[in-house]
């Protein structure tokens, strides 16, 4: 069973790998810190790449609500919560 911490670590590793962030270890990304602009400083190209990678890795799908997407992509913590929610939902409907 995946713990929230291990899921967060996996997402951090994915961010560093997919976005080719240099001089940064996954552990150094703060779980609650903002990913875009302040905080990690990701940009709009990163947002698309990260969305694709999350869909591929975790089988989740990004929704169509801009406000919700902004909340989901706020931090590693919110991304992890989103992945977990979708997985839980997926199992119920399967």
């Amino acid at each position, binding site marked *: 069973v995946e713990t929230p911490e291990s899921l967060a670590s996996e997402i951090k590793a994915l961010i*560093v790998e*997919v*976005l*080719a*962030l*240099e*001089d*940064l270890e996954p552990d150094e990304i703060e779980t609650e810190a903002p990913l875009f*602009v302040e905080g990690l*400083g990701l*940009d*709009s*190209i990163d*947002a*698309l*790449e990260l*969305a*694709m990678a999350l869909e591929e890795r975790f089988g989740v*799908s*990004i*929704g*169509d*609500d*801009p406000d919700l*997407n*902004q909340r989901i992509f706020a931090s590693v913590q919110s991304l992890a919560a989103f992945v977990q929610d979708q997985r839980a939902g997926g199992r119920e409907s399967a």
Partner: protein
Amino acid sequence: VIPFSRLLVEARADADRVAFGREGPRDVRDLRTDVASLAALLLPFQGGRLLLHCEDAYAFAVGLLAAGQVGARAVLPPSRQPGALRDLAREVDAALLDGEREAEPIEGRPCWHPLEAPRAEHPLAALDRDAPLVELFTSGTTGAGRPVAKAVRHLEDEVTCLEERFGVLLGREARILATPSTQHLYGLLFRVVWPLAAGRPFLRSSLLHPEELLPWLEERHPFALATTPIPLRHLAEKEVLASHSESCRGIFSSGGPLPAAVARRVAAAVGAPPWEVYGSTETGGVALRQQIHGGEPWQPLAEVEADRDEQTGCLGVTSPWVSEGEARPGGARRLVLGDLVDLDPAGGFALLGRADRVVKIGEKRLSLPVMEERLRSHPAVDDVVLVALEQAGEARVGAVVTATRAGRALLEGGGRRALAKTLTEYLSPDFDRVLLPRAWRVVETLPRDSQDKTPAARLRALFSAGSAAARLPEVLARRRKGDTLFLSLRVPEDLAYLEGHFPSFPVVAGVVQVQFAMQGLAELIGAPPRLSSLEALKFRELLGPGQAVQLQVRLDADQSRFEFTLSDPERPARVFSSGRGTLERPS
């Protein structure tokens, strides 16, 4: 079709839809009321300059048209970066912003939300075709980007031409879904001005993810999509377009080169490849093409004349909506762009690349010399060359830096990352986030060829070692002979500074040299070595940045004992360090 200048005075049904979206639908009656109310508020700024930036394309349209009503021009900041906004605010009379705007005035200028003007009457008039209406900024790179003014007629003539070309194809009822920002000419025309003039409803919201288009596609209403290559690639890869091919009237892509593979994928999904639009801020739309095989020639729009400039070999463009360059009879102008061109006898042309050092990142243009100059003004930077890299399939900027004394002090304190962070923060008020360098290399001297140019291929090679380069030496060659591994290594310039103990004389610390040996051991074992003891460590010669090193590691057959030597490949007797040790038994 109503000429854009007469939009608010021609008879149109009050209930005709103008815009739609999560913010709610708006019709012609709303548009007239909102423009009149805002125009009444803006009367004191007649003939002035108004900063305009909105996420909501309808609010933007109201701001633009109200500015036109009072004979003011809308100054469109290329981005919402605080630095860019502040600098521009000093040069305007008032600001029109929506969303998370600061409630208080910027730089002492009053600031309003275009849709929050108190209800008021104002007689609506046709716009003067020759009056300047907008001021855009070229390249979208710096806060100090060059302004380009457009008169009403420049916008009107171009969208009239587009409507004559595409009006029948799109039909009156198609809704316009557009992703580019209204702050640049492509978004301004395709998202707002053309739909307004043609009477097609446009989507209000600015979208971050192409998925956010889906609810509007799901409504199965006929639509046309205007977007840029990156979101289009994502839409094509996700295969969402195929299920909406019935309602798709056309797809437009501009702002950067579209890979032919993406064009083919879109064609397979909706039955026709996207219409690619080539143009620039100064010239507006120049040419169109649809790619299937790839590299199909560009076909100039009606009223556009394309030529090859004799002196530069670059594309010359003449049309009624070119707003800069030499004046031609009838209000047209001719401007020579920075793209090398090859004309074909059939009237089309092929683009052969940029003549200067301007690159496109996302849909933003970046003049590398402009950012280099900015970086050189930082006390940590002695010299710098920027190069376009490809990372995860997208263009990104890499920076190769030589450091000043202050820069070396930064590197010693916090390594390359500290330097990168300092310089990124230094650039960020003036450059869009996507343009900021993503990878940094610090070198002793910039690689230069015989003409004193910095060859892009050699610069790129500095980045090819990947993200681990900061901590590990570059491996140039490897050879194994029995129980011994020979690695030809090169010490990266930034590594030495990072670990160096003497500020004026950077050296690779002994502990780092041992790490090199551990890297060799890891290759021999096929796993990270677990060190039990180290003996007979000797550091003889100082190892400096840029130095080529031969690492020799021998491991006993039972994988318990090892020895290593780091030496100069040119003079094997010159040994930097050597030692031996024992490993823990694999558990």
